[in-house]
């Protein structure tokens, strides 16, 4: 009796230690978020002591490493937005089309083979897409439009669009598969074609998920780095011509980090300020996506 008691206590002690360890593990994710916000804010606040916030958001000149130094983030912002919009022009129709095909048209065995193939696209590292953009898409664009520059926004956008097709497709398709078959059968019984079922029933029913997928795809494109670092160029110019060489926020961060930046210099702080802006934009977009899903959730 006594020994049983003892061993029970031993187990209880062990159990409670394990719970505490797991609790610490779980808290690391909270600490990660706090650390991201603190480190970004810390350097960004110092940055804005030296650079006026008005110049940062209104000036159209970005030359932080050249004299005279200019810290207008607008060229980076327009570059980033151009890439994000461009890649969404590719990824949204293609991804949504694939989702509709897979959930409404494809026979089961076709679906089973095509889906994993599309998912391979999502597993290929972004560096490979960058290589593809530079060595395949850009020369192709050049033969069609000779004024295309070696590094340009269009080529990077197309490659990035291809990369995020599977993301749009799988998020939308998951939602479409969740639409109860009874609703489809009812529509077919009324004489609807597959196209009518897809566009008048399935798509409207899954609109919130599709919207969220679009926002997430856009956010992903804003934060993507290696494709733009390789293929979009390093010229922070205020332009909306997709055939020009540009620079994005992420492209700038990589470019400046390839040199040896010393802690405490204005260049070092600039990278953190740009990172803080990037973090803020993607954070707002991810929250928006979540809000869209929660707000317009279809319950069956």
């Amino acid at each position, binding site marked *: 009796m006594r020994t049983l008691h003892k061993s029970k206590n031993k*187990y209880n002690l*062990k*159990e409670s230690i*394990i*719970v505490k360890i797991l*609790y610490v*593990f*779980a808290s*690391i*994710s*909270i600490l*990660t*978020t706090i*650390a*991201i916000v603190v*480190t*970004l804010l810390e*350097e960004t606040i110092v940055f804005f002591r030296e650079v006026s916030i008005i110049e940062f958001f209104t000036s159209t000149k970005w030359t932080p490493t050249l004299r005279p130094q200019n810290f207008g983030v607008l060229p980076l912002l327009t570059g980033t937005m151009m890439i994000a919009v461009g890649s969404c022009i590719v990824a949204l129709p*293609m*991804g*949504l*089309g694939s989702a509709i*095909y*897979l959930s409404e*048209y494809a026979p089961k065995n076709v679906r089973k083979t*095509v889906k994993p*193939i*599309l998912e391979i*696209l999502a*597993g*290929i*590292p*972004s*560096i*490979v897409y*960058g*290589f*593809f953009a530079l*060595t*395949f898409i850009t020369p192709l664009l050049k033969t069609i439009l000779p004024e295309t520059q070696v590094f340009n926004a269009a080529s990077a956008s197309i490659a990035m669009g*291809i990369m995020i*097709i599977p993301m749009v497709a799988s998020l939308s398709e998951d939602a479409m598969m969740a639409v109860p078959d009874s609703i489809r059968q009812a529509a077919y019984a009324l004489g609807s*074609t*597959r*196209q*009518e079922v*897809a566009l008048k029933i399935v798509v409207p029913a899954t609109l919130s998920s599709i919207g969220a997928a679009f926002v997430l795809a856009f956010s992903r494109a*804003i*934060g993507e780095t*290696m494709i733009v670092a*390789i293929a979009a160029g390093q010229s922070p110019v205020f332009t909306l011509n997709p055939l020009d060489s540009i620079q994005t926020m*992420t492209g700038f*961060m*990589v470019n400046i*980090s390839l040199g040896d930046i010393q802690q405490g210099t204005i260049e070092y702080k600039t990278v953190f300020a740009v*990172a803080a802006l*990037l973090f803020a934009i*993607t*954070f707002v977009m991810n929250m928006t996506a*979540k809000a869209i899903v929660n707000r317009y959730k279809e319950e069956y």
Partner: protein
Amino acid sequence: MRDNNISSRKLKNAVFHGIVLGATGFGIVALILLLMQVFRTGLMWLDWDFILSMPSRFPEKAGILSALAGSIWTIGLTILFSLPLGIGTAIYLEEYSNKKSWYNKLLQLNISNLAGVPSIVYGMLGLALFVRFLNFERSILSGALTLTLLIMPVIIVASQEAIKSVPNTLRQGSLALGVTKWQTITGVVLPYALPGILTGSILAISRAMGEAAPLIMVGAAGYVAFLPSGPMDSFTVLPIQIFNWTSRPQAEFQNIASAGIIVLMILLLSANAVAIILRNKYQNRMD
């Protein structure tokens, strides 16, 4: 009139079928073109010399050995850190925590948010926290810790899904035999959830293997002509080496970049194959 209506609707359907089929085909064709481009330019340059040589200024002598070693070191450490942390967190969230408490909700929201943070931002965190603050310098350790934070949310979410799928009757059956909660978890819940956990974790680790941006921020070098001998050594990894070669103007370097891409993709494919084999093996055992 009526017939007309039906035939026009049928035509519309056929056209729409063509459009969505084309959209699906676009992705597949893009994948084929991408693979062809890589193999066309790189396959000729890929041989044992390439794998066993150090990088060089001369493309015909350049190899990928130091990047390969750096990748293996970095990913090895990342696995060591991220699996216990990620799976442990998932166990805590699914098995121990009170699901209705505000802290749990905050944790869950936080994890899904972290999954959406751009990888380059993790690089900035790694630079400020591991490289500067903790003074680990531009080492393999700093890189591995950064990648650990990057892929942890993915591992947590995948493991949570796997643990959720364990039938409650199994847990109760085990507890009814008088064993402790932790013994139930290690003896019943984890073995059942293992295929799902492994698949998710291997996908997350393949993602880490292909990441370049956060490691560039942490300060992995573009040119390393020695093999790392410990976690505090400076390093480069395959994706950064490929990036370095891709950004050079000479055509030969583009070719060895694509040879490097082939090596990277073979590694990623083998990782995924291992995931599939493990999953099948454990699934059979459960059945």
